[in-house]
């Protein structure tokens, strides 16, 4: 290795390290804050390094808030959203990819167009709609607007398009229907993408804040991201408790990520078009 090459490598490693430190600092700071007492957090001279190991804010978060309840709500809504989004997305993609019907291309254009509409711009009409339907503070009101995930349809279609047409013809000759083809051939052939999309949809639903925040007002029905705002209300500016709730809220996603790291990376690459 030449000297110039070595210097380049060292410089690149340093830049990567600095970028990594900048990225991880908020998490680190949240952790350090969460294990301090509330008085220590706001005291003068509280440094960057952990100088206290106090878990009282975690106990408070777990036993003096509705955190467990919010967990259950988040898990329930995220699972329902994931399952429905995958099933409807897959079936819609199958129809767009494999069936020939009038308006197919226009319909796909609509799906593509909806992909480009920012969620925020839909908040007001969706809220009015849900209100008219009497779904404010209802599970249906939380879940329904989150079921439209065009990227799932687009990615499934892309993969279904790539399955050789002879496989479809073989199924037709074997006496299979479209459901046979979808659930016995296309789905098993694309388990990898289904897993990846499932994980990414679950994480999106878990982290979803704006819509649940608007549509839920009762504490019983809150999901974790919305619940965090209630901790703020209950304790005033209680930084350590807020940080501990935030870390506990993120924990399942972090654990899921660590278990399915490879699949999540794959899903992000696929949905961003890096990998097809």
């Amino acid at each position, binding site marked *: 290795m030449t000297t110039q090459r070595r210097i380049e490598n060292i410089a690149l490693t340093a830049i990567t390290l600095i970028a990594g430190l900048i990225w991880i600092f908020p998490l680190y700071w949240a952790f350090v804050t969460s294990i301090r007492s509330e008085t220590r957090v706001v005291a003068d001279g509280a440094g960057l390094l952990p100088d206290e190991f106090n878990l009282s804010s975690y106990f408070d978060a777990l036993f003096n808030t509705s955190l467990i309840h919010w967990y259950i709500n988040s898990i329930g809504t995220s699972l329902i959203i994931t399952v429905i989004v995958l099933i409807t997305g897959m079936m819609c993609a199958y129809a767009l990819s494999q069936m020939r019907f009038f308006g197919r291309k226009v319909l796909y254009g609509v799906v593509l167009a909806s992909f480009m509409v920012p969620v925020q711009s839909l908040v007001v009409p969706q809220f009015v709609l849900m209100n008219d339907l009497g779904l404010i503070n209802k599970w249906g009101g939380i879940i329904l607007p989150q079921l439209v995930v065009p990227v799932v349809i687009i990615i499934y279609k892309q993969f279904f398009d790539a399955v050789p047409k002879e496989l479809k013809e073989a199924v*037709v000759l*074997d006496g299979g229907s479209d459901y046979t083809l979808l659930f016995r051939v296309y789905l098993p*052939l694309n388990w990898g993408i289904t897993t990846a999309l499932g994980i990414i949809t679950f994480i999106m639903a878990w982290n979803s804040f704006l819509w649940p925040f608007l549509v839920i007002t009762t504490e019983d029905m809150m999901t974790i991201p919305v619940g965090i705002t209630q901790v703020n209300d209950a304790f005033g500016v209680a930084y350590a408790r807020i940080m501990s709730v935030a870390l506990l809220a993120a924990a399942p996603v972090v654990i899921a990520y660590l278990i399915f790291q490879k699949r999540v990376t794959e899903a992000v690459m696929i949905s961003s078009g890096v990998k097809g």
Partner: protein
Amino acid sequence: MAGVKLTNVRKSFGPLEVIKDVSLEVPKGEFGVFVGPSGCGKSTLLRMIAGLEDTTGGRIEIGGRDVTTVEPAKRGVAMVFQSYALYPHLSVAENMAFSLRLSRAPKHEREDKVREAARILQLTDHLDKKPSALSGGQRQRVAIGRAIVREPEVFLFDEPLSNLDAELRVQMRLELTRLHRQIGATMIYVTHDQVEAMTLADDIYVLKGGHVMQSGRPLTLYDDPDNRFVAGFIGSPAMNFVTGNVTQTGNGIARVACEDGTLDVALQGALPGVGTDLTLGVRPEHLAPVEEGGLPVTVEVAEELGGSSFIHTRAASGADIVFERRGHRDRLDGQSLRIGTSAENVLAFLPNGKRLR
């Protein structure tokens, strides 16, 4: 088992008619081969029989039953695809049993049929493997096995050996012939390879531009083609063609001046008039060096095959003429010589391509 009958069958894709009024019959238990160059409509015709393509006009019968509008699974056909079309996520046994599972056949029946098909195709040791763990030849056998377990009335093969290497193709050809004899089913096979057609077929159907140019036993097509296209398509190396015009007739023989030489052609019907333009066709194995008469040619390349050689020559007009030589080891490269044959071995074609008999 059942035969397949097509009557005035037509197929159009928009304004483009790809199958033009085809009528043919593959008798029960026979091995019929559709052969022709790319784009001749042979695969489309097969897919129409399978029901994978709609029929624009005409009638398709399988076993005497009109199936023109019947859905593919109810036609009693099974198809083997060029790309095998095996389900990659299923094992060999599951691939073969797939159609039986869909029809909710009892488990013991599925297992019996799969075991029997595997025995016939020598796949017994591979039943638990995934297709990706098999060689090309084994995959093709699984595809055939998948067809066998359905016990169809008609087997359809769409260029099934095209993805295999030359050696494996020869082996699979023999296996297909053996299989046909063993199960005795009606089989229709599509290929662009005339050697496959000649070696496999009971009857060959030569297609061009959506028409059946001629059908019949392989050797009938080889020895007695109806037109210049069939004469040129069947046979390897291909038949030699030279053009010329009639200079003399008599005693059932027409003498044709061509390529600075002459060839005699024996005809059974009325002889053409002097001056008629004809294309003459001669098989390479019928040509040999002659002392006088025949055509003057210059030898360019000799392909030595061991038992015989194919001598590639160039005639006066620049036409390539190939003849087969057996039992000679001397090389003729660069030599000028005359080649000829007897009048019975020469076929005559009119300018429109039709055979003059």
